[in-house]
């Protein structure tokens, strides 16, 4: 298994932490992982993206321009990264934040109403976990238990009480796949 992913959206949508959670979870399962953020002005409120690689073998290049999965959380990222998915790859995107759906016919497309569902959970910040859950339904490369383990590392201690809510969001996200 060698999964190359890019996650892209606005700063503040939890793009970097979603990627970091995934990478941590990969490490929990003793896989080789890389998390590579875009950094700089993007960090300060603009667009943000990160590359995550989870692999059974040592990863050669952390610099990648074609991905097995692109996870897209806003329109500018869709415009930029739709073409970056490999033929046969997956595009997982957030329904509310992307106006123009992808037009690739050689990739599997998953439209996830994560923002709407997050509102129902009374916590819009769970949107990224719903998306992550959806991704894991599409590509079950990591166990949910590992993700929960990873959240303990990624979330500061004062937010650990939110882990059950995050789990709920993850599972909700998994259920949303294939429903649209």
């Amino acid at each position, binding site marked *: 298994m060698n999964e190359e992913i890019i996650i892209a959206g606005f700063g503040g949508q939890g793009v970097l932490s979603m990627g970091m959670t995934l990478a941590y979870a990969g490490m929990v399962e003793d896989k080789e992982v*890389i998390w590579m953020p875009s950094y700089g002005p993007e960090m300060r409120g603009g667009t943000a993206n990160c590359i995550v690689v989870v692999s059974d073998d040592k990863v050669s290049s952390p610099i990648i321009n074609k991905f097995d999965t692109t996870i897209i959380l806003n329109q500018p990222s869709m415009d930029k990264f739709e073409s970056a998915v490999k033929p046969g790859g997956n595009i997982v995107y957030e329904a509310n934040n992307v106006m123009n759906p992808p037009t690739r016919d050689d990739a599997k497309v998953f439209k996830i109403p994560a923002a709407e569902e997050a509102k129902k959970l009374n916590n819009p910040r769970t949107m990224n976990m719903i998306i992550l859950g959806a991704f894991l339904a599409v590509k079950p490369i990591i166990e949910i238990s590992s993700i929960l383990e990873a959240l303990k590392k990624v979330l500061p201690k004062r937010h650990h009480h939110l882990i059950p809510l995050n789990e709920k969001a993850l599972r909700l996200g998994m259920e949303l796949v294939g429903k649209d």
Partner: protein
Amino acid sequence: MNKKQLMKGNEALAEAAIRAGLQGYFGYPITPQSELLEYMSRELHKRGGAFVQAESEIASINMVYGAAGAGARVMTSTSSPGYSLMQEGISYIACAELPCLLVNVVRGGPGLGTIQPSQGDYFQAVKGGGHGDYKLIVLAPNSVQEMADFTYIGFDLADQYRMPVLILTDGALGQMMESVVFPEYDIEKNRTNHSSWATTGRVNGREQHVITSLHLQSEDMEKQNQILQKKYRKIEENEVRFETIQTEDADFLLVAYGLSARIAHKAVNLAREEGLKVGLLRPISLYPFPYQAIEDLSAKVSGILTVEMSAGQMVEDVRLAVNGKVPVGFYGRMGGMIPQPDEILEEIKKLYSPKRRQ
């Protein structure tokens, strides 16, 4: 046992330095190395070292000079423009033969440039940088694990040869996270006692110790130069480090260091998938440079491609090593742009010839 941790390259380097017995860190904020400074500000005091956020890179490097001259294990870190500011101090440190660790998390230049990763500081790192005839041992990690590993090695080499060691890395390696395991390291066993030359005060009335880079008499200055040059020859003999990947049967060779070597490795895999027998030589020590290893391989391959995140700097050393025996091509991106594996593959195809020379 020490377990795997997921860390940024900058943080792994900082943690390794503390575990290596770091006594003083002096630095100034600059992207993309600030995590290193921030990590030190959080951790170093409570683990027995001194942390100072200096007023400039110039002050940082001179704080390093002072503390290293007093025999302490110390370091600074910065990124390209800051490293330029440090050059005067580094020249002094090299001449006065003070051990210390320097870190340049390179970003794109020239000028204020960009905060994205680059390898444009190669010449500055390996050909001198400041004024006068001096060298630094330059180590180029290509993973978060090596960011940690080379920190220990760097401190030990600095002690052994009484000179600054530079870790030349880049913004991407500094910012990215990978798993890292910190090796066991016995500080007491590995640290060199510097009391024979360090300025510590004239303990028990011993003779005065002087740290200086000033030798006004030309004869004396030449003598000091000869001491340095002798040391550099010894280093060239003993401290060359490099890695080869699939070179045994290679018709064609890539040469790349640091992040570029990771990307080139992927290009090797892509080329092999298409039946092209491509290998990779990765210089790990940029000074001393693996001239001999490249020369040896150049006798076996039909051509060489050097890949860098620069306009072509290390390629000059590769050409020196190859000395015209086979064509040496270059592919690079500049200003924070990163060569992609498929771009490298395209370049390989332009130059590739399946004629193995031996």
